[in-house]
């Protein structure tokens, strides 16, 4: 390299360092061949095989790195050091040679699976697919594509993230017009045939159209390039060889056509060559094959090629508008129906075109037209037809039909080949399943007495003649029932069937309790029914009354007996009792319930705090709580937390209304009270004593109530939503009131009743509801109370509290009276005022922040009054009461205890709800005022 030449030539890149001539150091002696050794990077002699690959130098270097080599480890595990579970991998036994470049597990930086470009190269596959069209078996990549997992290489994913879509080209988006022109220009320059003028016009039109729908700011992705297959050519065929096309071969196509070597097959024919382009005689033909012996013309043997058969241009003309590449969807290459788009009046969303085919219209079938005389109530066909005529009770017949199917033969599905399992009876199914026979009688037939069974069998045999009553009994029955009317005769039979043979159950419903003689007749009727007496009804009726009354009573008896029939013993023998008690209808309630509030209220009003107002319960603190408080568990091992609970009937509302337990049924005397007597324990009745205030209140209320009773329609005007429920209940009460026979008596007793009870609703309400049950008791209690009042007055001297002895009790009582009166006055006012106030507040409110403070701080409104919360509670109670009502109507069980509870309950409610009531409270207030002024004077 001379300096001259440097000037002459332009040099690229950095020149190599000039080789230093080995002037300084002498040339190394070439190592002779036998002395040449291979060493690894650590200077160790290189072995050509690792331990796993049959190395010859197994030992120190070759093993796991120790001189001794690999020794099997013993299993050691101690308490301090737990042996870890070792999972030996093959790599543990390999040395770095194995991991080396030529080892068995070479460790090198490789493209990870994710970045592996050869994983699935879309473009290459595409190219291969294109090429495969020309291959021996076209479309052979199809199978591969089916099998290969559809994963994308990272490059494709990145492109997709950037907004690229398959089928588009890569590059900046272009405006449509520019690209179009470019394409046009290209074709114009190189195309050998000029496009006809008409077509250009149409293209211009297209452009115009496109501009209409594609404004200037819309850009398009560049079109995809048709990939070129770079798979190396295998085989010995010549360049451009196109394999045998079965489509061509089978369907025959002229070889004289234009052969397009470079044009992908997908374009010329469908993807897999949908044949039928031209017609050709069959037979095998192709370049590779010569002319068979049977061929006529042999002029094509030596293929004469002409240049006109080839394209001069790579790529050729653009299909369609070039929006997509060669993968353009089929319909896209077709000309779009622009007229349709233009004709569409609505706004076409950007990027959408009108559908080619109209969506399939859903045919909506109109609902079937109802018949004119259709009524949306299903009437069950009375099943009396067979049984009434034949004298068998319908219930029995029904039971027969259900149990064995012996009875009824006329059912059409019975004869239908005996096919389905629903047509089999339980016996058949049981034998099929191989189960044991049920305990108890298998059929109702067996339960019958032999003569009855015989009668039934007779019936069955004669049931083909339906209209003839057979047996003597039935005849007689028909005669007797003719008296009572035909309709009730069936019911009579049913009642008889239900009650016959029933042992006397201790508790039965007593429907005619109001009328003892009627009830007695009814019971007589029942006992006769139980004896199986067929004439039970007629015999038990009262002969003294008129015929109309008798028929009426007859009907009532029959209905009642059917309604409250006992469960048949024969039926119950087929059921077994549950092994475990179901807890579903039991609910846990506190074992010790708080006693009467009224007593305590009275005591509190009298300021007789102490024994009367104190109650003590057993209470179980949590074990942890005891621990935290450093006290021993008072009930060790009890396992209960809180108040001890007992299970009660869930459906009894009274479980939840513990506050208003009645006097009689309230908890047994408290243990603390029963122990010793104090001066407070004068008598039990003393508790019931009412103070002057309550008397005053009740007298006032009585006046209002009597007034209200004169107004007939709603018992109390409903002033607000709160009392609407109350009024509805009262309306209900009214209706009951009318039905009750001894209403008058109730009204008489109301007077004295109200004097004793503080703030009670009109007593006739209770009378109406619980007619005749509580009369005696309440009157007696009123007597007791009047006596007790004097007792208390006498007792007052020792009542003085040992500390506050400055005021005499009598004066304190009157002072409380006045104070409470004013208090109630205020609460009445407040309840009226508070209707518009916030509802969320319970309990005593918090004082409002001052105006100054309120401005800045986020203080919530605390304006609701305590009264409000009370109202809420009462609402709840009212709800309870409603439930109770329903229950009562359903159950028709009159338990004296429950009645008491109800009564107590309602007393309180009524007093409360009447307070809420706008009009009544006002009136009450007036009364109160007048009375008070009277007293002060």
């Amino acid at each position: 390299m001379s300096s001259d030449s440097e000037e002459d030539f332009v040099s690229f890149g950095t020149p190599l360092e000039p080789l230093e001539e080995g002037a300084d150091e002498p040339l190394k002696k070439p190592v002779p061949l036998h002395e040449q050794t291979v060493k690894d990077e650590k200077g160790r002699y290189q072995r050509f095989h690792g331990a796993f690959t049959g190395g010859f130098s197994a030992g120190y270097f070759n093993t796991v790195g120790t001189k001794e080599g690999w020794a099997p480890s013993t299993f050691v595990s101690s308490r301090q050091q737990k042996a870890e579970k070792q999972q030996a991998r093959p790599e543990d036994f390999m040395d770095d040679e194995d991991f080396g470049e030529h080892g068995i597990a070479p460790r090198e930086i490789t493209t990870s699976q994710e970045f592996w470009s050869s994983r699935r190269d879309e473009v290459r596959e595409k190219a291969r697919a294109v090429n495969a069209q020309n291959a021996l078996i076209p479309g052979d990549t199809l199978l591969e594509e089916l099998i290969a997992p559809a994963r994308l290489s990272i490059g494709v994913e990145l492109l997709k993230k950037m907004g690229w879509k398959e089928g588009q080209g890569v590059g900046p988006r272009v405006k449509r017009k520019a690209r179009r022109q470019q394409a046009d220009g290209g074709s114009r320059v190189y195309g050998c045939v000029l496009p006809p003028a008409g077509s250009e016009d149409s293209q211009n039109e297209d452009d115009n159209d496109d501009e209409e729908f594609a404004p200037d700011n819309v850009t398009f992705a560049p079109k995809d390039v048709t990939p070129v297959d770079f798979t190396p050519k295998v085989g010995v065929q010549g360049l451009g060889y196109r394999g045998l096309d079965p489509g061509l071969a089978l369907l025959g196509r002229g070889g004289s056509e234009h052969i397009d070597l470079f044009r992908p097959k997908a374009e010329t024919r469908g993807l897999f060559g949908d044949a039928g382009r031209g017609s050709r005689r069959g037979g095998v033909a192709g370049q590779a094959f010569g002319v068979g012996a049977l061929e006529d013309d042999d002029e094509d043997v030596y293929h004469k090629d002409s240049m006109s058969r080839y394209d001069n241009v790579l790529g050729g003309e653009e299909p369609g508008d070039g929006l997509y590449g060669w993968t353009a969807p089929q319909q896209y290459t077709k000309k779009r129906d622009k007229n349709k788009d233009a004709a569409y009046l609505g706004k076409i969303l950007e990027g959408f075109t009108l559908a080619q085919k109209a969506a399939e219209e859903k045919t909506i079938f109109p609902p079937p037209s109802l018949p004119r005389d259709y009524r949306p109530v299903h009437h069950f066909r009375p099943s009396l037809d067979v049984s009434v005529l034949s004298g068998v009770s319908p219930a029995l017949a029904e039971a027969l039909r259900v149990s064995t199917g012996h009875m009824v033969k006329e059912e059409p599905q019975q004869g239908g080949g005996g096919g389905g399992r629903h047509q089999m009876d339980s016996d058949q199914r049981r034998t099929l399943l191989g189960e044991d026979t049920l305990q108890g009688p298998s059929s109702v037939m067996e339960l019958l007495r032999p003569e009855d069974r015989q009668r039934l069998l007779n019936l069955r045999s004669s049931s083909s003649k339906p209209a003839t009553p057979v047996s003597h009994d039935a005849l007689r029955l028909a005669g007797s029932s003719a008296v009572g009317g035909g309709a009730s005769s069936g019911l009579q039979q049913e009642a008889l069937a239900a009650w016959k043979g029933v042992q006397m159950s201790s508790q039965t419903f007593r429907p005619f309790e109001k009328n003892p003689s009627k009830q007695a007749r009814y019971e007589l009727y029942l006992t006769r029914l139980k004896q199986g007496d067929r004439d039970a009804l007629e015999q038990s009726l009262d002969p003294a009354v008129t015929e109309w009354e008798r028929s009426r009573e007859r009907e009532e008896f029959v209905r009642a007996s059917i309604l409250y029939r006992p469960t048949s013993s024969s039926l119950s023998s087929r059921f077994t009792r549950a092994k475990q008690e179901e807890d579903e209808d039991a609910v846990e309630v506190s074992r010790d319930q708080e006693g009467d509030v009224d007593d305590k209220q009275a005591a509190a009003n009298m300021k007789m705090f102490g024994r009367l107002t104190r109650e003590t319960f057993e209470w179980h603190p949590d074990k942890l709580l005891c621990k935290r408080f450093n006290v021993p568990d008072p009930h060790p091992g009890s396992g209960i937390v809180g108040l001890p609970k007992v299970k009660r009937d869930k459906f009894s509302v009274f479980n939840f209304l513990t506050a208003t337990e009645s006097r009689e049924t309230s908890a047994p005397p408290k243990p603390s009270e029963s122990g010793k007597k104090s001066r407070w324990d004068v008598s039990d009745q003393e508790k019931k004593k009412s103070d002057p205030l309550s008397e005053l209140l009740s007298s006032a209320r009585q006046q209002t109530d009597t007034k209200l009773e004169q107004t007939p329609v709603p018992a109390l005007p409903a002033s607000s939503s709160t009392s609407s429920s109350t009024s509805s209940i009262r309306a209900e009460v009214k209706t009951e009131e009318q039905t009750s026979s001894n209403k008058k008596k109730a009204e008489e007793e109301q007077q004295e009743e109200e004097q004793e009870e503080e703030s009670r609703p009109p007593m006739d309400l209770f009378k109406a509801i619980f007619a005749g049950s509580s009369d005696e008791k309440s009157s007696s209690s009123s007597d007791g109370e009047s006596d007790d009042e004097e007792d208390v007055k006498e007792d007052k001297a020792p009542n003085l509290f040992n500390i506050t002895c400055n005021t005499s009790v009598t004066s304190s009582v009157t002072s409380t009276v006045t104070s409470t009166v004013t208090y109630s006055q205020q609460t009445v006012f407040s309840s009226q005022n508070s209707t518009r106030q916030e509802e969320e507040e319970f309990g005593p409110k918090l004082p409002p922040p001052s105006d100054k403070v309120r401005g800045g701080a986020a203080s919530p409104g605390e304006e609701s009054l305590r009264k409000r919360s009370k109202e809420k509670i009462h609402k709840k109670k009212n709800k309870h009461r409603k439930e109770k009502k329903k229950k009562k109507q359903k159950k028709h069980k009159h338990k004296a205890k429950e009645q008491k509870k109800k009564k107590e309950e309602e007393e309180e409610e009524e007093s409360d709800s009447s307070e809420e009531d706008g009009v009544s409270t006002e009136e009450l207030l007036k009364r109160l005022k007048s009375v008070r002024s009277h007293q002060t004077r």
Partner: protein
Amino acid sequence: MAFPQPRPQAPQLPQHLLRTVDCQQGAVRAVRFNADGNYLLSCGSDKSLKLWSVSRGTLLKTYSGHGYEVLDADGSYDNSQLCSCSSDKTVILWDVATGQVTRKLRGHAGKVNCVQFNEEATVILSGSIDGTVRCWDTRSRRFEPIQILDEARDGISSVKVAQHELLTGSVDGRVRRYDLRMGQLHVDFISSPITCVCFSQDGQCTLSSSLDSTVRLLDKSTGEMLGEYTGHKMKGYKLDCCLSSKDTHVLSCSEDGHVYCWDLVEGSLSLKLPVGKAVVQSLSFHPTETCLLTAMEGRVQVWGAEPEETEEDTMAS
């Protein structure tokens, strides 16, 4: 001893205003002394709880974390922890020094009216408008209460703890005393809704104020009424009452802007302390000294037996 020994000189009353602290936290819902009486806690309606020095009247720390106004607070015996309850139905256990929420206890169904540590600060008792008292364990990391006392039929307005006894006052008009050692629940019926309950210092009596404008002193063991204190006005608001540190006097807030102070034994009104025009919402008596805190609107006032600056006032009294 059933009652404190009569003292040679008349017991002093906190009748001199020592200082007024403007808390800047909305209405002060409750004001409480800490265990030793050197600091006070003010519960603001702006969701914050503030710790103040009583002697200087300076703000020491603000604890914010409640979602609604803070209704009550208490400090642990060792001054390391605070607990507070709020209308947001939560009870929060605070670390005093850092001001961080140690634990946020959720479970009440309504706003929590009152909160109290037990003696060793191992249990927090919170009474809510939902009618339950919940006993929260501060030691474990359980978020469920140890026990729920759901005997009340209406909201709980006040809870107090003394040794092994819990005292709750409820709107259903009953004072309940849970005796852990005996495993008994004593219910005293006081017909009017209870606003506040207290144990006396000697632990023999309970004090309960109710909405019939009466404060009653009941014998703890029998439930008999030992004294009745009236004259103040407590008709609609949940106001506090308390006993003086030596059990000599009964104090109660009033809606007429005064604090009424009765002689415990005689039941006579011994002091009617004019606090302001609005409702005196909360008060707290110093555990040992004659010092009273009152909260009215956004201010906390500190009252002492003797004025700090001048001596004339003592002469006047």
